[in-house]
């Protein structure tokens, strides 16, 4: 997760251009391997010497670095290819070609490995070693549906390589062998990013569904959407403390917590900004526990308080404990939906029918339709009237606008920073009193609190 991120495609981190430079790089010479001459080989000793010189490091560090280069396959041994060590003697090594770098072909594909094993098998019977024979048979079963392709590719690649010079062919075989020694996939376990046909099918099938669904959706013109961002930012500009400051001062800057104390839940007189915010949207009113309280008072005057009570009870059902769902659904039905209920809510007949049917198999979202109906009823009807009411206007009129406290005359005299009671403690106290759990901490919007 999270690579180093200096732009995406770069070559292997271990590759240094000058290392293979004929003039400045490691001394390379032709090496005899059996009876064929391998060009551009070098001794282990040469590699270490070069690293010491170039990077001005100790022999120990050079051996370590060189050893890593072999382990990761950027340099491979010609003699004893299965021993991935850098020997500081005259053992011959070669630089791996970029095509076979681990970084070029990561992750190693099972299909590719199968082709390699098939090639080896075709070239000389019995050339596969034990674990290779095992892998071959596992792959033959696993990706059997691609086997025609595997065999075809193996034959084609062998045919193409027969057309090379013998020395080149041997070099290629060495390189390929070196690559697979290090990068062979673990065929016994599924690779994390392995693309089997089923995964690919699932992926394309899924994206087709997503695209189709997206094509079916109603989109809104950009001009309308973007205009709404402008309006929103403008409306909330003076409420944004970082943009416009806050009164009497920002507690983090002045060390004075007045701003928080004058905005608590239980404060006698709210601030003007706070009351103004209730008029921005119905959600703003409901999210502020004081706003919600005021709205309830208004609804009581209008004899429609049961709507808000119902909405609160539905919220409690939606976000409450799973174990209490059945109980809560019963309560809601008894208080709000049953014929002759004490606080009967007026929902349209279709929604009522659907809800009553659903109550037979109660779950957390069973009241969603009814809740939404009542929510929009309040939003379209009661809420706008509340904003025009005497109750709200009076609230706005008597709301306070605190004086701005300028920064202290003696800024170097830091105020004492007082701690505040932890919400956990407040709750513990109210719990002891036997009141409802989850009483809001100082100055918050309310959570699922059935008491208003």
């Amino acid at each position, binding site marked *: *997760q*999270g690579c180093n*991120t200096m*732009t*995406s*495609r770069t070559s292997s981190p271990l590759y240094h251009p000058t290392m293979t430079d004929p003039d400045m790089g490691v001394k390379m010479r032709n090496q005899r391997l059996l009876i064929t001459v391998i060009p*551009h080989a070098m001794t282990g000793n040469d590699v270490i010497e070069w690293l010491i010189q170039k990077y001005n490091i100790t022999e120990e560090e050079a051996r370590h670095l060189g050893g890593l280069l072999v382990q990761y396959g950027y340099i491979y041994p010609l003699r004893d290819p299965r021993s991935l060590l850098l020997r500081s003697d005259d053992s011959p090594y*070669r630089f791996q*070609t970029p095509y076979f*770098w681990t970084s070029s*072909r990561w992750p190693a*594909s099972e299909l590719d490995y199968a082709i390699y094993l098939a090639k080896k098998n075709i070239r000389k019977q019995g050339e596969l070693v034990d674990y290779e024979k095992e892998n071959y048979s596992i792959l033959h079963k696993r990706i059997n549906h*691609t086997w025609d*392709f595997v065999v075809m*590719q193996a034959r084609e690649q062998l045919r*193409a390589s027969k057309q090379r010079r013998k*020395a*080149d062919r041997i070099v290629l075989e060495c390189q390929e062998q070196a690559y697979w020694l290090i990068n062979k996939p673990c065929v016994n376990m599924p690779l994390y990013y392995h*693309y089997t*046909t089923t995964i*690919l099918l699932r992926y*394309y099938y*899924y994206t087709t569904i*997503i695209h189709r669904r997206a*094509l079916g959706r109603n*989109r809104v013109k*950009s*001009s*309308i*959407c*973007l205009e709404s961002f*402008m309006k*929103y930012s403008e409306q*909330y500009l003076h*409420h*944004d403390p*970082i*943009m416009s400051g806050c009164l009497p001062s*920002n507690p*983090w800057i002045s060390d004075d*917590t007045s*701003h928080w104390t004058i905005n608590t839940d239980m404060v006698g007189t709210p601030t003007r900004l706070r009351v103004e915010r209730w008029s921005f949207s119905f959600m703003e009113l409901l999210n502020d526990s004081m706003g919600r309280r005021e709205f309830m008072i208004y609804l009581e005057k209008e004899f429609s308080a049961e709507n808000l009570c119902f909405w609160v009870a539905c919220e409690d059902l*939606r*976000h409450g404990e*799973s174990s209490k769902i059945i109980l809560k659904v019963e309560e809601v039905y008894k208080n709000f939906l049953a014929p002759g209920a004490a606080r009967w809510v007026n929902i349209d007949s279709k929604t009522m029918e659907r809800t009553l049917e659903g109550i037979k198999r109660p779950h957390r979202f069973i009241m969603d339709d009814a809740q*939404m109906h009542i*929510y929009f009823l309040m939003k379209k009807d009661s809420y706008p009237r509340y904003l025009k009411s005497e109750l709200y206007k009076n609230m706005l009129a008597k709301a306070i606008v605190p004086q701005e406290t300028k920064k202290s005359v003696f800024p170097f005299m830091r105020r004492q*920073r007082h*701690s*505040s009671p*932890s*919400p956990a*403690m407040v*709750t513990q106290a109210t719990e002891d009193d036997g009141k409802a*759990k989850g009483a809001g*901490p*100082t*100055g*918050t919007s309310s*959570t699922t609190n059935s008491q208003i």
Partner: protein
Amino acid sequence: MCDQTFLAITFGPCDSCSENRPLMNLYIKTEPINYCSLCMEIMACQGLASGETLKSLKAESETLRKKLEEERKKLHDVELEKVAEKAEALGELNMKTRRTLKGHGNKVLCMDWCKDKRRIVSSSQDGKVIVWDAFTTNKEHAVTMPTTWVMACAYAPSGCAIACGGLDNKCSVYPLSLDKDENLAAKKKSVAMHTNYLSGCTFTNSDMQILTSSGDGTSALWDVESGQLLQSFHGHSADVLTLDLAPSETGNTFVSGGSDKKANVWDLRSGQNVQSFDTHDSDINCVKYYPSGDAFASASDDSTCRLFDLRADREVSIYSKDSIMFGAASVDFSLSGRLLFAGYNDYTINVWDVLKGTRVAILFGHENRVSSLRVSPDGTAFCSGSWDNTLRIWA
């Protein structure tokens, strides 16, 4: 030269799909060709029933994708920059570090605010989770998790509990006790179980439900009390790295971002993926909703932050600069949504004008990557957590 014997193109446009990918050297009817591994796999299946289906499905997916692009373009009648021309230019932003919270012994990976506007929970690489009163900088609670790399932590809405998790593949809830002698770990409750690391967690509207995202490619909704899985969300094709809950009035969706470069919007009730955005070039490390809920911002390893409009169903703005070359790890909006704060892997915090798309300020101070950034609930400050083991409050 290291080797002239076998020259092959190792990276470039695939002969089949034209995408720039690592290439395999193949032979088809004696002709050498260069295919990416995906196309090679598809080719290997050709001629079979599934091979045919795969090829046609892929083609269909591409056609639909192109159609979608066209449809989106039709309704794009103006750029955000143009609309924002009439917005007032922002003055100079003077934000400083007002508090530094020292106490973690290792990289800070995640933090969250309490609804009381001053308390914070933070988690770090060494397994410690600390609850602070950021105003006084006092530590109030500390928990040592039985795992390292605690990549996710969250404060419960009531302020009475915290949730956290990481390499243990779980999300656990700790009720906050005020008894100083009590071992918080004793009351720990294991809620979520994934099959790979936990990358993000958040409580929904109450203490009773938690939404988690994981390296196993899924997100999930859990009942805290019983630990029951309520809904799971499948659709990312790689690790899910981040999530955020929508503030909308019908409150039923959330957005997630992943290593597959996609940002997906989900319906909490049905588990369905309702919208998808895939314009980023690399992993999406963080997603955050715009305050109105009509859009969300993302921070990515491709060193850009972007704004996606949900109603227009498209990306509407990119926040980037040539001089910013390192990945963005975390973003959050100021209260009005006008400013976007973003923490980067080059140790800085950039402040963007969301509407005009320009950078308003760059904040220095951290001595290592900024891993996590959140604005306080009342918008008076924001907190940044960093790999330099500290948290800073800026205002």
